[in-house]
């Protein structure tokens, strides 16, 4: 299905540019062309298609649906809806306050916020196209599990005391926002707007990710990864997570790196741990959440994710070798 992008890259890299298919530069340029065309094509198509259906799915509705449910329902619901509900990271703060105000437990709210940046439909489809459906399914499963476990731990230790006090005083108003996009044409316009907005926001992360992936693919020898990042090396997974924390990218932007690392034989657990860490924990997100969480809860939250990602890495490396 995606062979057309491989052929396009063959033609451009080896035909037009005349690069040697066996050379490092040839490998790197081929990887770059194939991924740029494939990922941006998929990205636009998926955002457009999903945009058409999800003009109905808003955080306000999620809040209403999740509020008042038992924990056995609300946790899976929160991570599932967190994965598919679109919201800009600058909305994290009002969303957090609105959820708590509706009586949704802190743990469930955090589960939603953990799952949201890690999993989204674009990343899942692009990941599947790059490294197969099995890995994509594992990533989704692991991401949802980390969200639920993270939320449950926060709930277990009753960390509500580490939420900024003013948060509990805010009262939310009732409103019925008129849905303006109801006709077919409106929905198409909305979808196209989504493509412009989302692609406009994340293209730089994706492009940098592809460039790094191309360099890894073409110029870093396989022996390097076998030596430092094999499953035998117990430090490989924690190192991957630590490297990923300061790095900030959209989940889709990490995929070319995942692709290149897996092709070099780096074990799947290590690669997925890196992807989760890059996508989920980021400094900008932490700075935004600092407005509602006291530093102790920020530290606990980061610590829980750190441990959970390492756990995911070791587990998958142990199970899937």
């Amino acid at each position, binding site marked *: 299905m995606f062979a057309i992008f491989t052929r396009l890259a063959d033609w451009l890299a080896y035909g037009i540019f005349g690069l040697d298919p066996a050379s490092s530069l040839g490998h790197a340029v081929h990887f770059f062309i194939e991924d740029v065309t494939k990922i941006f094509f998929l990205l636009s198509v998926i955002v457009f298609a999903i945009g058409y259906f999800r003009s109905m799915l808003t955080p*306000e509705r999620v809040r209403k649906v999740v509020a008042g449910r038992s924990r056995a329902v609300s946790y899976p619901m929160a991570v599932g809806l967190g994965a598919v509900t679109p919201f*800009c990271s600058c*909305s994290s703060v009002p969303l957090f306050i609105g959820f708590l*105000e509706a009586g949704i437990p802190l743990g469930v709210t955090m589960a939603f916020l953990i799952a949201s940046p890690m999993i989204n439909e674009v990343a899942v489809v692009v990941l599947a196209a790059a490294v197969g459906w099995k890995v994509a399914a594992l990533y989704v499963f692991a991401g949802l599990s980390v969200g639920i476990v993270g939320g449950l731990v926060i709930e277990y230790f009753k960390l509500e005391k580490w939420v900024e006090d003013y948060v509990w005083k805010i009262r939310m*108003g009732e*409103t019925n926002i008129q849905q303006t996009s109801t006709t077919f044409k409106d929905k198409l316009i*909305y979808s196209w*707007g989504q493509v412009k907005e989302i692609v406009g926001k994340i293209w730089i992360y994706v492009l940098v990710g592809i460039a790094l992936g191309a360099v890894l693919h073409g110029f870093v020898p396989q022996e390097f990864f076998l030596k430092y990042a094999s499953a035998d090396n117990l430090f490989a997974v924690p190192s991957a997570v630590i490297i990923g924390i300061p790095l900030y990218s959209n989940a889709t932007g990490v995929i070319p790196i995942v692709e290149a690392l897996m092709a070099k034989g780096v074990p799947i657990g290590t690669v997925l741990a890196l992807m989760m860490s890059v996508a989920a924990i980021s400094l900008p997100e932490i700075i935004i959440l600092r407005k509602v969480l006291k530093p102790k809860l920020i530290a606990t939250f980061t610590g829980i994710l750190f441990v959970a990602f390492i756990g995911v890495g070791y587990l998958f490396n142990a199970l899937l070798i």
Partner: protein
Amino acid sequence: MKTFKVLGSGCCNCNTTADLIDRKAKELGVDVTIEKVTEMGDILGYGVMSTPGVVVDEVVVHAGGTPTPAQVEDWIKA
């Protein structure tokens, strides 16, 4: 005269939204006042969680993303 309020913490999309309303109002030659609401309590008071949101004469007409120029025109003309 219509009063527009743009709900949002001051992120890029919120400023884009306010600028868009301002530009469209000038194009159409309609006098409007535009106010940016950045207090969390006030934003949530309108029942909006996903910013930017738009309020016209105290009625919430939009939430969660930059509106389209056509939507903005509708609000100004309505």
